[in-house]
């Protein structure tokens, strides 16, 4: 009996260490491109186009100097922050109202929700030209002018990202609101709270992990989006992803500055993930997937 336990623990130990080896290999694979990007951003041009690839090299900050100095990267970061925060805020507010309604009352027996979800399936390229024209014309109206909805203005991009993010956000938050026990809200209503108060005081706090995870994903989407950002902005409202693509120049692809720019573009979202990882996992555990 004792021997059998001993044997099985040895076997378990071997399996356990194999598990850690496998995970270490996976982490290495998943990190390699990011590490390589960061390494490239510190390389001289000759080390970048070297054969075989150089692993040890003398680092240079020239690529960053170029990206921030000549390519004006700081401004694009500010633009991106404005657009990503703006669209995330709207998505969360508008989306949580709708998701709550769908989860609680199911207006339209699923048809309205299905309709909203279908817009997620639309290829962005199909609507880009009509949207371009819409924002061109909105920019000429006084409301559009005030809300910066014209071409090459952050408002237009915020709206475009909101439209494409909303379906996913509603879908995600919908399941979180379903998990909020109805009885708790009813208790609040009996206490004399209004429906809106019940929503804000009971449903929202209980669904907050899901709202957080939705906000995080919306933010990533907007931060990383390329097609709309490329077509709807020119210069003043250009975002970081478009700027990264701008290093494919007539003097060649400037791999070094591009890697530096890509690193700068990616670092904020990476930090986001590292800091909020627990939140993301908890949010997904509680919601969408049960």
């Amino acid at each position, binding site marked *: 009996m004792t021997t059998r336990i001993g044997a099985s623990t040895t076997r378990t130990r071997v399996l356990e260490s194999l598990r850690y080896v496998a995970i270490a290999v996976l982490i290495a694979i*998943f990190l390699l491109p990011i590490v390589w990007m960061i390494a490239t951003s510190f390389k001289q041009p000759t080390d970048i186009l070297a054969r075989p690839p150089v692993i040890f090299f003398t680092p240079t900050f020239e690529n960053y100097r170029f990206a921030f100095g000549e390519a004006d990267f700081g401004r694009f970061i500010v633009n991106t922050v404005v657009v990503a925060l703006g669209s995330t805020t709207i998505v969360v507010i508008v989306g949580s109202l709708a998701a709550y309604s769908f989860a609680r009352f199911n207006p339209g027996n699923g048809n309205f929700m299905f309709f909203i979800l279908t817009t997620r399936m639309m290829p962005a390229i199909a609507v880009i030209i009509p949207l371009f024209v819409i924002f061109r014309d909105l920019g000429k109206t006084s409301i559009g002018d005030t809300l910066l909805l014209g071409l090459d203005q952050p408002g237009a991009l915020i709206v475009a990202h909101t439209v494409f993010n*909303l379906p996913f956000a509603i879908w995600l938050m919908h*399941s979180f609101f379903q998990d909020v026990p109805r009885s708790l809200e009813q208790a609040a209503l009996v206490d004399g709270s209004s429906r*809106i108060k019940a929503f804000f005081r009971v449903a929202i706090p209980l669904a907050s992990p899901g709202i957080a995870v939705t906000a995080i994903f919306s933010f990533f989407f907007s931060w990383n989006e390329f097609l709309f950002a490329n077509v709807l902005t020119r210069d003043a409202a250009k975002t970081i992803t478009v700027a990264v693509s701008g290093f494919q120049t007539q003097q060649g692809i400037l791999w070094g500055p591009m890697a530096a720019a890509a690193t700068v573009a990616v670092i904020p979202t990476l930090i986001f993930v590292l800091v909020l990882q627990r939140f993301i996992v908890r949010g997904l555990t509680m919601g969408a997937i049960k």
Partner: protein
Amino acid sequence: MTLTDEQVSTDLTSRFRVSDRMYPYLLITPAMIVVGFFALYPLGYAVYLSLRHADLTTAMGIGEFLGLENYHFVLNDEFFWSAVRKTLIFSIGAVAIELTLGMAIALLLNGMRFLKGIARSLIILPIAVSPLAVGLIWRYMYHADFGIFNAIVSTFGIPEQNWLGDPGLAMASIIAFDVWQWTPFVALIFLAGLQSVPSQVYEAGAIDGASFWQSFRYISVPMLSRAIIFVSLLRFIDAVRLYDSVFALTAGGPGTATEVLTFYIYRLGLRFFRVDLASTMSILFLYATIVIAGLALRRIMIQQSELAE
């Protein structure tokens, strides 16, 4: 603060007294307005264009009404069908690998006893990065002469490959990029699902003598069924719309080896400005996605509307 807070909500309800019947509709109104105007209007415009001759680069611009002629043309266009085929190869390939690999990673992570948080944080990093920015870096890594991938495979004695330049390999290379970026997301969702299975269930299974495979097949998979449907659907919807990574990695090449449907539509729409054909294809594309995804969604939808009652 408390005063204004209460004041506001009381005022709101008393002044805008909304009937119980209208309340749910009121809540979805903002979303419906945003989506209705900015998605439906362009879509309607696309339908309108698909029924006409429209070449924006000519002086004629939007021309005469053609009825369904564009649809007839597109459905007989060999390049369209070739793009459809490539889209399906990509989507099915990528999603299948992501699901399998994602499940394996989730099982690995689920059994971890220490360093769990760090491992999870590091593995999910790819979901946060921009497909375009990092796609361009992957293009550099795939480079046949200067890329790290060839340096890696040659240390293992495998001949160097022309990852993006070989028509037989280019699509696989794009799939690999997508798998890299999205497997962590899939794994995370499966992990979340696995963790929500009460451990007693597995213990009960173990007492009954279930093997690892049996407990996976008869406990984990059924418990995860909703997660599996959710994530396949979500990934499939995104995979068929893939654009950024093709733009960054191959621009549809070599030749037309990776010219997926969205890229073909992009070329027709923004290179040729044949917005009639581009719109026609978009409408067909959307219709097909809705029908396919709708079949899957319908089940979820019905489940959820039952829950909502």
